[in-house]
């Protein structure tokens, strides 16, 4: 954690009510009311587990799931409204996606490190370039909102597989200064979001750039390489299998550039590009 500190998480898990859950481009966006917690900082995450029927199907899910928040606002009757963007990829995310308004969800956090501001990342930064892929657009949306509030210019590049995996674009991002890439060519640029990043960097002065990214490991590694080759400061919000979120389990190991591992939950999830050996920890390529 650097710069402004992140808030201290309340000790223990707390029950939060599900206020809303709706479909968005093949993903779900659900809203929890956090009556007690401090306002999270962009990049931070929570551990979530539906209170009823967690483990309801064949004993899974058992562990909570680490999910970055996609939006935070004040709740009219007190506390915070936390929005989460979910893609159903396994038993945990499926159960979270099926939560109904009025149900309760166990929540722990906020945990982890925040994104630096562009000037913290690069003293010459003129603004920020945000590169999001799939559900990884969630922390990018939070960072974008923070930059807007601070009057710092940003451009967002968002990449998706297809229309069925492209939720939250309209709700979480304004149309302005946002460019889209779809691998199937159904909208925007046909191809990868990294194509858009390369195009954008061609016309830019790299010395005034600051790049932020969240998305699938292969995309993050591509963004990391693009930036490192051009000496552009880059922060990545990574994901890893994680049991606890607060440094207890040592499960979320990510290889450091200098050797050894960092614990993504407390040393991340936001890391500098040069800090890590790869954004694809555990992938076959680094075995």
């Amino acid at each position, binding site marked *: 954690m650097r710069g402004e500190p992140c808030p*201290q*998480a*309340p*000790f*223990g*898990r707390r029950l939060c009510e599900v206020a809303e859950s709706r479909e968005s481009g093949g993903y779900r966006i659900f809203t929890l009311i956090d009556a007690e917690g401090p306002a999270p900082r962009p990049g931070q995450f929570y551990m979530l*587990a539906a209170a009823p029927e967690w*483990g309801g199907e*064949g*004993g*899974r*899910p*058992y*562990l*909570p799931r680490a999910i970055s928040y996609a939006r935070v606002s004040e709740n009219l009757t007190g506390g915070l409204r936390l929005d989460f963007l979910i893609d159903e990829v396994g038993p*945990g995310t499926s159960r979270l996606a099926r939560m109904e308004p009025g149900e309760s969800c*166990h929540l*722990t956090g906020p*945990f982890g490190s925040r994104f630096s501001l562009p000037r913290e990342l690069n003293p010459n930064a003129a603004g920020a370039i945000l590169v999001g892929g799939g559900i990884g657009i969630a922390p990018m949306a939070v960072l974008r909102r923070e930059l807007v509030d601070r009057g710092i210019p940003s451009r967002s590049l968002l990449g998706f597989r297809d229309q069925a995996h492209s939720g939250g674009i309209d709700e979480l991002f304004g149309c302005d200064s946002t460019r889209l890439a779809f691998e199937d060519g159904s909208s925007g640029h046909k191809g990868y979001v990294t194509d858009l990043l390369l195009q954008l960097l061609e016309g830019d002065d790299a010395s005034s750039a600051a790049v932020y990214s969240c998305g699938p490991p292969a995309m993050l590694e591509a963004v990391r390489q693009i930036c490192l080759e051009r000496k552009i400061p880059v922060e990545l919000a990574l994901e*890893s*299998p*994680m*049991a*606890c979120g*607060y*440094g*207890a*389990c*040592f*499960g*979320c*190991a*990510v*290889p450091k550039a200098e*050797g*050894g*591992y960092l*614990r993504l939950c*407390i040393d991340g999830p936001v890391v500098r590009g040069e800090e890590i050996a790869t954004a694809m*920890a*555990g992938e*076959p390529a680094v*075995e």
Partner: protein
Amino acid sequence: MDLATDLCGIELNGPVLNGSGTFDALAARRVFGDTLIEEFPFHCYVSKTITMNPRPGNPPYRLWETPSGMINSIGLPGPGLDRFLERDLGAMAELGVPLIVSVMADCAEDFEVLVERVAAREEVAAVELNVSCPNVHSGLIVGEQPAETEALMKALRPITAKPLIVKLTPNVANPQEVALGAEAGGADAVSMINTVKAAAIDPVENRTWLGVGAGGLSGPAVRPIALAQVRVVAATIEIPVIGMGGIGDAESALDFILAGARVVAVGTENFRDPRAGSVVTAGLPAALARRGFASLAEAQSAKLD
């Protein structure tokens, strides 16, 4: 209801410990602040296993969720003995509960150094021996061999008067034989169970999921195994048993007490709720009363049919 008890002469305000390696109190203090100290969830804190030299731990992936549990192959990452003694131990003393330090080595000579230097520190109430590592001389995993366990204990026993606890593995046919070896060698207690050997297959890539191929299963999935082993070990040896394996609430904790454990440890449940230890403690009076016990001591001395 008074839950105070003792373990090998260490006075405890209650019977709930943490399993070694399931709660990094120093990281938790950074995350949760002083509330962690004010509401510390355990009556005794057991450190992560300390080794002679720093260890990075295993390559990812290190975790796999299973039905009602998880497999880990963490690989004992740690700062090494020197840095632990200089940097970490003093901070652990601020937790306000007795401290048990877990140590592991691959030969008796290193174990002797670890026990001597750790036990010499006044912050430390007891030392737990993680014997799940192969002995470099014999190639055998010490904790799977009654004779090796006894020999190691005999080598370590003269080094300190502080309690020595042997962590037993469940990956043997007859854990009571290893427990007898530990007792014969002079151990003051055994803690059990360690994780159950386990593996997982990557559902997409057709390879083993865990970075080192296999790991250890924990959580409620192992609780019935742990209860059976605690029962047979507690019936065999005189020294106390620290019971653990999928404890997630007061009822499951009480199951272990009735199986013969003197005190219990919460492990994997800490990952689901950082306050899991407090949840267990808070539920114990009602659980004891519901099952007809007037005190913890009464349950500790109960004999199962």
